[in-house]
């Protein structure tokens, strides 16, 4: 078991963005329950490591910042062979199946003490994570500024790329 950590991997050498801290830039493009967790988990983790973090919420991913919609994100069994209950795929198209799968996933999350999506956004805000709300998506989908959670920064891709240009890690989720 490794115990001393100094001098390992140059961890104290910080990112090249001038802030002296590493930087993570994420694009969150999915508006599903299962798609919302990975960027939020990565953001919370990176912020805990002392990194600067920014997430660009674009297209359906903008629903994660939508005050009403982010409480109703769903997971679809249709076309999702990873669902743990092996029902024939077409059965997933029946009414009520998406709601059932969503209830099931929310149940797992609760049993595992995982925060909800709104709770993860609270963690992100408290940790200083930048929440970029894609202005093009807002225009295309008719999302108003008042629809968004507090702390969301409306921005275009240019502002995000300006942030991401100096990132040490960039991921499209």
């Amino acid at each position, binding site marked *: 078991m490794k*115990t*001393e*950590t100094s001098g390992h991997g140059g961890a104290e050498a910080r990112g090249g963005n001038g802030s002296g801290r590493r930087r993570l830039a994420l694009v969150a493009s999915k508006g599903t329950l299962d798609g919302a967790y990975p960027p939020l988990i990565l953001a919370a983790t990176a912020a805990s490591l002392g990194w600067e973090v920014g997430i660009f919420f674009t297209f359906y991913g903008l629903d994660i910042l939508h005050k009403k919609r982010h409480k109703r994100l769903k997971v679809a069994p249709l076309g999702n062979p990873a669902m743990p209950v092996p029902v024939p795929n077409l059965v997933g198209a029946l009414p009520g199946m998406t709601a059932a799968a969503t209830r099931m996933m929310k149940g797992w999350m609760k049993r595992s003490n995982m925060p909800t999506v709104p709770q993860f956004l609270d963690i992100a805000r408290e940790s200083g994570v930048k929440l970029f709300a894609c202005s093009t998506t807002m225009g295309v989908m008719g999302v108003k500024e008042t629809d968004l959670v507090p702390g969301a920064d409306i921005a275009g891709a240019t502002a995000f790329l300006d942030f991401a240009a100096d990132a040490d890690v960039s991921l499209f989720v």
Partner: protein
Amino acid sequence: MTDTIAHTRAAAAASERSRTESAKEPGGAAGAAAPVADLELDCKGLLCPLPVYKTSQALNRLAIGQTLRVECTDRGSLADFPALARQRSLTLLSASERDGVQVFLLRKEAA
């Protein structure tokens, strides 16, 4: 979730600290008394990112040189806590696992 500040044990922690550091196999002494830390954090039953997030918050309440003991049940924490120590100014004094519980002793260092 129980965070227990053990100010009264600061002196004990200091002696424990030097003992732990001098040990060649930290955490390897099964059955030994749990190391005493300035702050203790129970992250049992929590999954990533919560143990690291809560540890990060707890570290903000510690002074440089103080120690934090964290108990986890997320198997990934065995990989995550050495990485956390590398990423922040921490020394991982010991890491061990017994009966599915991972125990980490961290010391906050000057940034």
